[in-house]
């Protein structure tokens, strides 16, 4: 008997048709849910506690619902939401792999979760040791010397890295002006460069999807602070000339920044530090499987080579010579980049994930991620050709451009129809350099049966494009809502219940 796919949601996975009222629409004056502790604290009147000029004499309307209605409301909302736990989520560049429940359970332990971040160091030795252990393991994984765990997400890591770059050059009395970025880069890269006080110089990709080394060399000069690269890059290909790129950038005194969005592809196989990178950010919510939370939280630690360690944000958890732990701020630190110590619970989950896998397990993750992406790429070659006919890493960029040319159906339509097949859509129209791009990242946690079901679904869609293109153009129909009017949302801006006039 052939196994059925485990990672495919049923064809109508989500509750349909009726809209869910907002919590404010469910509100009835006088209802309530809250219950507070009995404290016996004297109930002084507010007027005695707070001077009149500070008091708000009106209460602010929130909602007034029973606990039963609160549970019903948010549970129904959850049924209108796709998630990794429901089915495969091959959203390229986002590494939507299965998030082990164990890691959530570890972080939920009150011995970690109920600790105040401002407690004196002697009272939080366990947390400090955990952070030091994680830092050391992340440095081994990336081939770097030291790391900050403060940045709360990848983009925060990028900006931190650029400020480290700036601090390094300024310490050498060599302020520089430009940062190079390939045209295939994530949008956060150029946005971070601007906030880092640098100008962006865009490097074109070659026809093979890789950095054009000649164009790169032409753009280099003594005013270049560094380059930001993703490797494998955003089209899922390994930058094979990375050593030449690194020496060219280093030759003009620039630094190499590694965008860790695609680190999953190379775990235990090759390390950014060994490729010549000086600064590396990691997306722990991608590579180390911490849940994405509907868009966050993440964590974006930044690891650096030895020459940049003295500039790292502080304070850093540090092991002292007597074996105890304390907060230490590096000598020429750029300063804090987070209100406390970073997204600590995300950090704890990532450490648990690393510890379960160990060194060999992390390598298997990369191997299986790359295996799945290549299998899918080849399996779909007759349906949706790869943008670059070359072995990919952990994700493959396919193109709907032939389908568009033949039937007038766009990549977006294909993605929308896939939602009705029980899968999340791939990333569409990214990277920008690929026409009608559909970027699939199956991840290592989807089974062969699920990949086959995904491929079959895309074949059915391709057939529909030929025979009944309007079905694809009008998809999805069976989801909680059909396509939404994005132009209206922007034109008639309604971002609160008040603006809706309810």
């Amino acid at each position, binding site marked *: 008997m052939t196994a059925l796919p485990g990672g495919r949601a049923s064809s109508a996975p989500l509750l349909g048709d009726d809209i869910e009222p907002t919590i404010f629409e469910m509100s009835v004056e006088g209802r309530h849910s809250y219950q507070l502790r009995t404290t016996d604290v004297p109930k002084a009147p507010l007027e005695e506690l707070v001077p009149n000029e500070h008091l708000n004499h009106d209460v602010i309307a929130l909602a007034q619902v029973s606990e039963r209605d609160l549970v019903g409301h948010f549970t129904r909302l959850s049924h209108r939401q*796709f998630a990794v736990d429901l089915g495969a989520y091959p959203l390229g560049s986002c590494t939507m792999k299965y998030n082990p429940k164990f890691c959530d359970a570890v972080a939920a332990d009150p011995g970690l979760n109920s600790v*105040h971040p401002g407690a004196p160091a002697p009272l939080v030795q*366990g947390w400090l040791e955990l952070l030091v252990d994680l830092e050391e393991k992340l440095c081994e994984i990336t081939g770097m010397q030291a790391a900050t765990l403060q940045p709360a997400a990848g983009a925060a890591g990028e900006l931190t890295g650029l400020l480290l770059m700036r601090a390094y050059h300024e310490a050498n009395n060599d302020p520089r002006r430009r940062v190079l970025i390939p045209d295939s880069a994530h949008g956060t890269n150029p946005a971070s460069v601007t906030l880092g006080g640098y100008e962006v110089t865009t490097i074109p990709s070659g026809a093979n999807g890789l950095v054009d080394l000649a164009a790169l060399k032409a753009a280099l000069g003594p005013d270049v602070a560094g380059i930001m690269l993703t490797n494998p890059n955003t089209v899922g290909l390994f930058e*094979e000339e990375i050593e030449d790129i690194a020496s060219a950038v280093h030759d003009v005194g620039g630094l190499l920044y590694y965008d860790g969005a695609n680190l999953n592809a190379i775990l235990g196989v090759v390390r950014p530090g060994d490729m010549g990178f000086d600064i590396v950010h990691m997306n722990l919510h991608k590579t180390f499987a911490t849940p994405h939370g509907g868009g966050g939280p993440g964590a974006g630690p930044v690891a650096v080579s030895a020459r940049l360690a003295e500039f790292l944000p502080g304070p850093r958890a540090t092991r002292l010579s007597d074996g105890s732990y304390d907060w230490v701020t590096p000598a020429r630190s750029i300063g804090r980049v*987070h209100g406390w110590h970073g997204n600590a619970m995300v950090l704890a989950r990532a450490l*648990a994930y690393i510890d379960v896998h*160990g060194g060999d397990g992390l390598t298997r993750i990369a*191997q299986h991620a790359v295996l799945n992406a290549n*299998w899918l790429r080849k399996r779909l070659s007759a349906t949706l050709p790869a943008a670059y006919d070359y072995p990919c890493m952990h994700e493959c960029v396919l193109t709907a451009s032939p389908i568009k040319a033949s039937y007038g159906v766009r990549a977006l339509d294909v993605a929308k129809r896939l939602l009705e097949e029980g899968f999340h859509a791939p990333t569409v129209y990214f990277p920008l350099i690929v026409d009608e791009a559909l970027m699939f990242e199956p991840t290592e946690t989807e089974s062969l049966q699920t990949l086959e079901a995904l491929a079959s679904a895309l074949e059915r869609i391709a057939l529909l494009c030929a025979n009944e293109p309007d079905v694809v153009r009008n998809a999805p129909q069976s989801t909680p809502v059909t396509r939404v009017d994005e132009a209206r949302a922007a034109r008639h801006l309604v971002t609160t219940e008040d603006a809706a006039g309810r």
Partner: protein
Amino acid sequence: MPDYLPHTPDEVTSMLDFLGLDSLEHLFAHVPNALKLTQGLRLPDGESEPDVAERFKHYTNANKATLSEMVCFAGGGSYDHEVPAVVKSLGSRAEFVTAYTPYQPEVAQGVLQAIFEYQTMIARLSGLSIANASLYDGATALVEAVNMAAGSTGKETLLISSGVHPHWRAVVHTFAKGTGHRVVEVPLVDGRTEWSKVSSSDLAKGAAVVAAYPNYLGVLEDLSVAKDLSIRADALFVVAGDPVAAGVLKTAGQWGADVFVGEGQPFGTALAFGGPYLGLFACTLDQIRRLPGRLVGETVDTRDRRAFVTTLRAREQDIRREKATSNVCTNQTLMAVTAAIQLGWLGTYGMREVATRCAQGARYTFDQLVGIDGVAPISTQPFFREFALRTPQEASTVLERLAGEGFLGGLALSALGGPDGSVIANDWEHTLIIAVTERRTKFEIDEFATAFAKAVK
């Protein structure tokens, strides 16, 4: 070899066959050999979940400042509020926890609508019309606020009260190194910002006037002074506020703020050693084109049914790239959803009740402690739920002694950062900031006062 990989050895072989490869290593044939790790990572071997759980006990046992071992009087943006079972349960639903950014609205109405409700609640609590879908934390939200102000005014000087939490000011300083913004910290006198110290040339260059409400020493400042200054400077008025205060105090909007930022941890998120927390951000409609991060708007689907979608996307980094209003992508959505659930649980009157009880508890605690010999408030100004005391011994010593009695007795000012304009210099090592929430009982407070009296002897 513990892991979460589904493939059997036979399946791996058949998949490799399909690709015409002999081994998994061949998948990496195009990676230069000279770069490859030959011995693998120097990490311990993988361990099963129960084995790792045993080792994690080493960490948890070494943490003494847990809520079960210590009664918490520490605050500074992180507070021990009630988080009921219903909020924990709903906030940990896998559909919210394991989703990604709602790029496909047809299958993301759950998160989108929850964010819409969150935006409504934060807009109301801040007294402003627009709230975004969250930022990382209070400190980084403040950075986005001052960046907005600089973009909006075309000026680069940030006039920041020294009453803003020292960590938040430190974060502003860090990111100002990239943007080139100039930070002017305005000193406190008797716990209040001495705005008259701002020079007329700084005033003219001011892009933002930033005040804290209450400030990090707990003091309630009359924000109309800062508001007037911002009008004279033609700067944006940014209020960094404790969102729980909005249960009873005037909102940022009522004080005339253009932007409100705050730390949303009190809305359903655990102390969590400082993260993940929730950066609250709200502003006037005038500033919407410069809003950082995601925003959810209401619209309709093709069948004219109400639907929600991320909107005004052209501000964001994936479209606008180097001209984006911010580089933020991943935010703290799960904490925002949790905040919506917590605020739904509290409701209109629960929010006011929590804020009132915080103020009552703080006053009662204050009254017990200031009667102790040698202990005095550092300011004569009114406070809400947090206050600062001068202690005869160094505050760190007092905290150490209190810890021995089972109390996390507050935050030592000296641990928050170096001496700055926020207190009189010789009080720096002798100032303790104490926070009280609705969870502190009279019994706990009385015991705390007894321990405090011993600790300062």
